[in-house]
């Protein structure tokens, strides 16, 4: 009996969907807008995330050591820094010689500077450690670990006297501002997306309510011939799920040319993320999210919307 009922409900849902084709079409179009917003949220999240990661990746600090510092002393500090939970390993070590070679390379067209360097006779540059934190907000605590205090990060209080200076303090303001921008961009993105999703879900819900409002007489007739609540609701539930499924598939199809068209633009504008590539690489996941939300929003909205007309 359960099987027969299920079969009848599904069949009736399909018929209802097919015979009300104009209504179904408009419901599908409205649901496509919702799913499009959800999809765009995924893409904008990916773009924002990758851009912020790129920017974060560009932030680092250098520790400059005095010229007399021994290599193993510096390597000790490197090792202890790598133990810190805030530090993103590896910490990169540049020896005095490498620093000099880099310096020369950077000034290869500057005859005057190179001459001055030659005249000095010895290497005036110290070894350097390049550190990246897992999160830009954590530089402060790394600096504290090194025992550097004060607005100019003077090494006076440091437990490591071989440290000459750290460029964090010069860059501190820029790093802080960047951290702030990253955090608020993230927060703003989340709020904006939730807002858009809520609005579009409400619009879909209301559209399906209108669709079912047109069937209110039917529902009361079903009631009066003694159909049970679930038997009445079932076909609307099924039709809602079909609306969701079809609009999800259409939305996924529409995203293909759009991402293809936007792919190169986004790659150039937002450092390094090609949305088309992102779409095709994560298609399975995006498919599940879009189709899943379509079916859930469609069926649940229909299910809830019928409730009002069942009180006969």
């Amino acid at each position, binding site marked *: 009996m359960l099987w027969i009922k299920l079969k009848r409900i599904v069949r009736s849902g399909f018929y209802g969907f097919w015979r009300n084709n104009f209504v179904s079409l408009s419901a599908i179009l409205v649901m496509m807008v919702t799913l499009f917003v959800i999809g765009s949220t995924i893409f904008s999240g990916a773009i924002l995330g990758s851009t912020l990661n790129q920017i974060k990746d560009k932030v680092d600090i250098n520790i400059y050591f005095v010229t007399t510092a021994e290599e193993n002393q510096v390597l000790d500090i490197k090792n202890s820094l790598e133990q810190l939970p805030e530090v993103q390993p590896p910490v990169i070590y540049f020896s005095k010689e490498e620093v000099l070679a880099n310096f020369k390379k950077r000034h290869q067209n500057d005859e005057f500077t190179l001459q001055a360097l030659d005249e000095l006779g010895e290497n005036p540059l110290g070894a350097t450690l390049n550190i990246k934190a897992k999160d830009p907000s954590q530089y402060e605590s790394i600096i504290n670990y090194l025992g550097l205090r004060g607005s100019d990060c003077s090494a006076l209080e440091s437990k490591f006297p071989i440290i000459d200076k750290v460029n964090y303090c010069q860059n501190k303001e820029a790093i802080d501002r960047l951290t702030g921008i990253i955090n608020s961009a993230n927060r703003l993105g989340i709020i904006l997306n939730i807002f858009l999703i809520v609005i579009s879900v409400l619009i879909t819900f209301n559209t399906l309510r209108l669709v079912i409002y047109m069937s209110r007489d039917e529902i009361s007739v079903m009631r*009066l*011939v*003694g159909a049970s*609540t679930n038997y009445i609701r079932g076909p609307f539930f099924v039709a809602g799920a079909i609306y969701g499924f079809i609009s999800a598939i259409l939305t996924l199809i529409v995203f293909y040319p759009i991402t293809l068209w936007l792919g190169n633009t986004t790659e150039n504008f937002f450092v390094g993320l090609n949305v088309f590539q992102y779409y095709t690489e994560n298609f399975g996941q995006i498919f599940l999210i879009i189709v899943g939300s379509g079916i859930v929003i469609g069926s649940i909205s229909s299910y809830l919307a019928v409730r009002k007309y069942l009180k*006969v």
Partner: protein
Amino acid sequence: MIHFDKVSKIYSDNSVALEDVSFSVEPNEFVSIVGHSGAGKTTLLKMFLAEEKPTKGKVFFESTDVSTLKQDQINDFRRKVGVVFQDFRLLPDKNVYENIAFAMEAAGRLDEEIEADVPHVLELVDLSGKIWNFPHELSGGEKQRVSIARAIVNQPDVVIADEPTGNLDPLNTYDIVQILKKINDLGTTVILTTHNKGVIDSLKKRVLTMENGRIIRDDKEGRYVI
């Protein structure tokens, strides 16, 4: 079989739809209820179908008080009652066959039964030729015959017809009344509300006359007297 015991219905704005109504209907009876619009005929039927609960009094079907039934029990109860409305109330996106099959599906009947009974009942109302048509392709009289077919397909104990001829011309009215009579002759109790004098006078069956929410006359072989 059906018994109204001192039933009153007072709406929240203190308007009285039914006042102290008592009557009984025996099995296989054909009862017509007449009265002006607003006399309480439809309210009476709504009480019986458990669409509304009485403010005072009780409505019995056999030995159960209809107003105390829960939703599941109401569904079961309604499957024993066939209803015909003035405005037909067919499902617009189902064809004639499916409209009738729907009532059988709701009652949990098997597919084989449905395939056998639907053509049979359409024959009874003389509509076999329109089995695959949709309601918007039918005339008023044809729609009403579909709605009667739907009402009787589950072999109900009672058929309620709420002004079934209100939207029909005299010829169709005559046909519909003949069908209802035939149903009654086959052993089903019929309750008919109408304000068509001709229908009542030709039936020569029991007539309840209502006015202002009260039953003012109950004649065994009644005529339309208001």
